[in-house]
C-alpha cells in the first residue's frame, strides 16, 4: 500500500504523560500534627509525587488498522489510551492528534449498577451522542449481541446482579454499537467466555471495515494475534517496537521469557 493513500487517524508526536498524584503520603506523614506543621511552615506537601508514565512516544495510526498494544504490567499502555481519548493531558512539547472523538472502552467503565441492563444500554447510547430514535432501534441488537439474555431475562434486572463477565460483555456491546473513528479497547476482550470472545473479535473486525481505527490493549497474546496486524510494544513508558504483529510478538516473547 502506498503511503499517500493511507489516511492517518491518530498521530502521536513526542508524547510524554506525567501523573501527579496527591495524597500519596505514608501513615507517619499523615498525622494531624504533621499536616498542621505543613500548613504553618507553608512547606509544600510531600504528598504530590510525579509518575512519568509515558516517555516520548511517536507513532502514526492509519484508517482501517487494528493496532495491538503490548507490554508488561505498568508499562503505560492504558495511560497512552487515555491520552488518545483526550482524558489525560500530554505534556508540553508533544502532542496527540486524533480524528473525531476517540472513545475508550475499558472493563473499568462503570455504568449505573442499580439500573437494569436495558436502561444502562439506553443511557450509554445517549452518552455516546446517539439520538433517542437511533437508541430505540439499537437497544434490542445490543442486548442480543451482549448475550446477557441467554440465561433468562437478565436485561430487566439491575446490573449489580450480573456476573463480572456479563457486565463486561454488556459494556463492550454498548461501546461497539456506535461507529467510532477511533475505538480504544482496554482488556475488554479478555473477559467473557470463548463464544463471546469470538463474536467480539468479529465485531472489532467489522468496526475496522467501517473505516475506523482500533487500538487494543490486552495481555492475551491470542486475541492480539487474531485481531491486530500491527502491534506497538511499550516498555516502561518507552516505545520498544512498532511493526507487524508477528515480528513484535516474537521479540516480546523472547524479552518476557528472559
Amino acid at each position, binding site marked *: 500500500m502506498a*503511503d499517500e493513500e493511507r*489516511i*492517518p*487517524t491518530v*498521530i*502521536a*508526536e513526542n508524547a510524554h504523560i506525567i501523573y501527579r498524584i496527591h495524597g500519596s503520603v505514608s501513615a507517619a506523614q499523615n498525622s494531624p500534627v504533621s499536616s498542621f506543621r505543613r500548613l504553618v511552615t507553608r512547606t509544600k506537601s510531600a504528598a504530590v509525587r510525579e509518575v512519568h508514565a509515558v516517555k516520548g512516544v*511517536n*507513532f*502514526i495510526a492509519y484508517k482501517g488498522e487494528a493496532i495491538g498494544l503490548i507490554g508488561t504490567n505498568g508499562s503505560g499502555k492504558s495511560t497512552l489510551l*487515555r*491520552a*488518545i*481519548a*483526550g*482524558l*489525560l*493531558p*500530554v505534556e508540553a512539547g508533544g*502532542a*496527540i*492528534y*486524533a*480524528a*473525531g*472523538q*476517540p*472513545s*475508550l*472502552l*475499558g472493563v*473499568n*467503565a*462503570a*455504568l*449505573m449498577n*442499580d*439500573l437494569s441492563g436495558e*436502561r444502562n444500554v*439506553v*443511557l*450509554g447510547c*445517549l*452518552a*455516546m*451522542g446517539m*439520538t*433517542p430514535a437511533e437508541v430505540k432501534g439499537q437497544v434490542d441488537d445490543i442486548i442480543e449481541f451482549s448475550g446477557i439474555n441467554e440465561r433468562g431475562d437478565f436485561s430487566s434486572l*439491575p446490573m449489580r446482579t450480573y456476573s463480572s463477565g456479563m457486565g463486561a460483555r454488556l*459494556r463492550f456491546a454498548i*461501546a461497539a454499537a456506535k461507529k467510532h473513528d477511533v475505538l480504544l479497547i482496554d482488556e475488554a476482550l479478555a473477559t467473557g467466555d470463548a463464544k463471546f470472545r469470538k463474536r467480539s473479535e468479529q465485531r472489532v473486525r467489522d468496526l475496522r471495515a467501517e473505516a475506523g481505527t482500533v487500538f487494543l490493549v490486552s495481555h492475551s497474546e491470542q486475541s492480539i494475534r487474531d485481531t491486530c496486524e500491527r502491534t506497538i*510494544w511499550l516498555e516502561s513508558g518507552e*516505545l520498544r*517496537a*512498532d*511493526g*507487524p504483529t508477528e*515480528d*513484535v510478538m516474537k*521479540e516480546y516473547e523472547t524479552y518476557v521469557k528472559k
Partner: protein
Amino acid sequence: MAQTTVVESYTGPSAKELARKYGLGAAGRLPSLLEYTRQLWAYRHFIWEFAGAKVSAALGNTRLGMVWQVLTPLFNAGVYYVIFGVLLNTKGGVHNFIPYLCTGVFIFGYTQSVVQAGIQAISGNLGLIRALHFPRASLPLSITLVEARNMIASIAVLMGIVLLTGEPINLQWLLLVPALLLQTIFNAGFAMLVGRLGSKLHDLRQLIPFIMRVWMYGSAVLYPVTRFTEHLHGWKLNLVLANPMLVYIELMRHALMENVKLAASPTLLWTEAVIWAVVMGIGGYAYFWRGEKGYGRG
C-alpha cells in the same frame, strides 16, 4: 524490522502538518464556549435520561418507590410543625408562622440538596467520565433536574400546607413559577460551580454541611426576616438583603401568603433574583467549561 516504522513516519511532513491536512484535532483540546453549548444541547436527551436514571437508582430499592418524592417533604414539614408549631409555639410576630416556616425550609432545601449532590457531580461519576465522552456539564445539570423534579412534589405539598393553614388562593400564586425558574437557573450555575470545585478540592465536601448551616441561619429560614430588618442598618442590612437564598425565600412567601412582611420591596427582590440567576447561571457555566478537559484526571 520492527522498529523501522517510527523512523519511517518522520520522512514525511511533520506531525502538525499531517494532522492539519487530514483534519485531526489535538486530543484534549478545549472547545469554544459556543461549540460547547451546542454539544450540550445535542446531549439534552442524555441529561434528561440520566436524571431519570438517578431517581430510579436512588428509589429503586425502596418499596414505596416514587411515593417518597411526596413523603419526604411531608415528613420534613411534619417535623418542623411539631418542633416549632407545637413544642416551641414560635410565632415571632408572624400571624401564620407554619406556612412561613415551611416555605423557607423547602426553598432553602432545594438549593441545599443541589449543592450537596453537585459537589459530587464529577467525583461521584468518574467511571462514566473516564469511559464515555460527553459534555461534562451534563452531570451537574442532571443533578439540578433531579432536584427540580423533587421540588415540584415539594411545592405541591407546600401549597396544601398553605391552604390548610387558611391562606387564600389568588392570582399572586402564579408568581411562584418565575420565582422557581430563577432559583433553578441559580441552582444549575451553583451546581456547576461546586462540581468543578469538588473535583479538585476534596476537602470541600467536609465543609459543605457547615457552610450550608451558617447560610441557613443567615437566610431567615427558621425565624422571621423582620429580625434582620428591624435590628440591622447600613451595610450590614444590605449584606443580608443581597443573600440570594433570602431573596428566593422571600419571593416565594410573597407569592403564596397574604399580609406577609417582606425584607424589602418586591421590585427590589425581583431585580436581585434576576441578577443572581444571571450571574450564577452564566458564571458557573463558564467556570465549569474552563475545567472541561481536566475532569477525567480525578
